[in-house]
């Protein structure tokens, strides 16, 4: 029995939990124009997958990521600008879908915080050096 059960487990087929349907053609096929494909790829690395939430749609194997990649490639092929496609995604899923926060609201704080900290550090260091001389 001890050897039999693991053998049975090896034979067990994984449950097909994601359903079945066609994968959009452009989900896993590159665009013919290398410049357009590079543009699409850059954008896809900056968009977050809705299903497996830590990954970009370029890295994810989830069905929804495939659909989003196809959407990005279709819109790029149709001459749409990457920032417009990014806004298109944000219009549907909110800021959450983008890995690159906008320079407004809390996002603005993220962008300027490094500079604020840098200047604060210089200001503090200046005081220290003055005392030593």
């Amino acid at each position, binding site marked *: 029995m001890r050897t039999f059960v693991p053998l049975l487990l090896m034979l067990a087929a994984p449950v097909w939990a994601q*359903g079945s*349907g066609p994968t959009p053609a452009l989900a896993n096929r590159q665009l013919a124009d290398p410049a357009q494909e590079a543009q699409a790829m850059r954008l896809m690395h900056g968009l977050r997958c809705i299903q497996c*939430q830590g990954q970009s749609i370029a890295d994810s194997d989830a069905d929804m990521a495939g659909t989003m990649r196809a959407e990005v490639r279709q819109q790029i092929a149709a001459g749409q600008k990457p920032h417009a496609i990014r806004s298109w995604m944000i219009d549907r*899923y909110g800021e959450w879908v983008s890995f690159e926060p906008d320079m407004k609201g809390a996002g603005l704080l993220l962008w300027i915080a490094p500079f604020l900290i840098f200047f604060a550090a210089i200001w503090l260091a200046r005081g220290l050096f003055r005392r030593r001389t």
Partner: protein
Amino acid sequence: MNRPWLLWIPLAVVAFIGGLAIYGLAVPKDDQVHSAMIGKKLPEFALPAATAGVPALSNTDMADGKPRLLNIFASWCLPCKAEAPHLEALKSAGVEIDAIAIRDKPEDVAAFLAEFGNPFRRIGSDSELAVQLKLGSSGVPETYVIGGDGTILFQHIGDIRAEHVPMLIEKVNAAK
């Protein structure tokens, strides 16, 4: 040092960061991705029928002046089976429900309806998730309240449980 209050700045910074950490631990994590389409019109789509005997679904079908629910489901999704009796209860309460089946086969949808009943007026088949993406929907099951003019009014993420039924009836009635 002529400005002793400066000494407190590092402590204040550390206390602020510590406070953020405690706040992050105390507030329950929200893993749900909410649609940003609430308050907007349904996107344009025309889906084929998901199974024989139930009509297909397009966005114009849901802009006939009558508010309704739009249920996103799949025959392979376990919580969708759990919410089936509550969709029946909503239908019995006079709520009209349309549905979109995600990555499904006609025979699987037919088997699902045969086993759990059919509370749906129309079912469209979204095999490539194209309409799900346009809706800002992140998974199955999800249920939207759609106004009579085709405006998306509310999104319920996850399965409908008994306690959600009165709330959904109220939202549909409020849209009338």
